[in-house]
């Protein structure tokens, strides 16, 4: 019943998972980048008038679509990583390499969802307000 992993193989597997560990930060990092870009460019446009706010707005709407596409891609990949359909399991209670692998996919998928929501909320003023009012 207990699946005690061998200490050496554990180390080895962990190294293999290191990339997945990095990968779960990609979606939130995209959100963060989009956030900084929006705030910085709109402030510049509204204070200095260059670039004109209309151009900034269109550029940032495009950047928003790009960010959402990147997050969707990351989300899709992490979903496959998680593979709830294939394994039939939503949760991963054991510290085995396999469970760790699926868990990282699961976490990355949820982070992708919240990052997408974050990007949409940050972009809402671009759509609703539009200018420097």
């Amino acid at each position, binding site marked *: 019943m207990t699946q005690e992993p061998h200490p050496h193989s554990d180390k080895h597997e962990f190294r293999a998972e290191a990339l997945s560990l990095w990968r779960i930060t990609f979606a939130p990092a995209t959100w963060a980048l989009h956030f900084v870009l929006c705030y910085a460019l709109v402030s510049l446009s509204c204070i200095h008038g260059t670039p004109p706010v209309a151009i900034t707005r269109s550029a940032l709407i495009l950047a928003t679509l790009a960010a959402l596409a990147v997050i969707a891609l990351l989300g899709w990949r992490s979903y496959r990583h998680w593979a709830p359909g294939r394994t039939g399991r939503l949760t991963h209670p054991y510290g085995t390499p396999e469970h760790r692998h699926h868990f990282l996919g699961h976490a990355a998928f949820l982070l992708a969802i919240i990052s997408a929501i974050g990007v*949409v*909320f940050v972009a*809402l*003023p671009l759509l*609703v*307000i539009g200018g420097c*009012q």
Partner: protein
Amino acid sequence: MTDRGNLPRGRAAFWLVVSLALAACDGDQSALDPAGEDASVLALLFWVMVAGAVVLFLMMNGLFFYFTRVKVRSQSRAVARWLIVGGGIVLPVTVLGALLTWGLTILPDHRQAGDGLRIRVTGEQWWWRVEYWPEGSDTPIVSANELRFPAGRRTELILSSAHVIHSFWIPALGGKMDMFPGRETRLSLRPTEPGRYRGQCAEFCGTSHAWMAIEAQVMPPEAFAAWLGTEARSANLPATAAAQAGMALFNREGCGACHAIRGTPHVGRVGPDLTHVGGRATLAAGRLPMSIEALQAWIVQPDRLKPGALMPAYPHLTRAETLQLATYLRGLE
């Protein structure tokens, strides 16, 4: 048994709290008793949020009740999952998204262009410097500690501060806006109901912050225009012997180093402009209703009424002298 005995008292206390809470909703300083377009939008937002909060509260507690009293057994994983995904993710995201979108459509309103009149208000310690800039004018009409608005017209306020951060808020007329030293913020108001309202500095700004209020009068446009014409004029000449003596005292005591009275040699800008001080409804930024006695009390010892007030006390003046000064100032309508 003890429960029963307590019930009537508990109920009385409940209704007392409810009626006190409701009584606080109307009045001259209530955001829930709006007297203008801008405050109405905010009041609506508030009521929608309260209603939504009540619904959510009932739903939450209804679920609690249902699962702990009515259907007391463990639920299937499917039910649990739907509750978590639906109630924990989908519902809050939709509600917050909708509120955010609505809030964002309201946000630009405070910078709407006005119908001509601009009022520049500067936060001082602890009073308000006021300048009216009617459309096309190149010199302002200077006033202090009171604001008047033409009803049904949109007026632009340009806000700033002299030393520290203050916040401008007339709840019955609109939202709140901070005032920063060295920076201009804007607020655009369209009051609709003629009447008197009370504003209050809403950002702690020092010892007498709580005494930094402002009277706002909304007037029919013709009455406003007539009033502004009077406000633009120089001060009345003292009409009585007592008032004349008061004017002489004003010279002798050097009040003009800090206060301006247009039409006299006094041009000080440290304290409020007193050209029409007697025409204001309140004294010292809403501290007291305007009256001869209030003026006397203020002149003798301002910091007894407003701790830390930046006006010196004049304890050496006799009662007769403060009466003369007060008579002079009260006559400056």
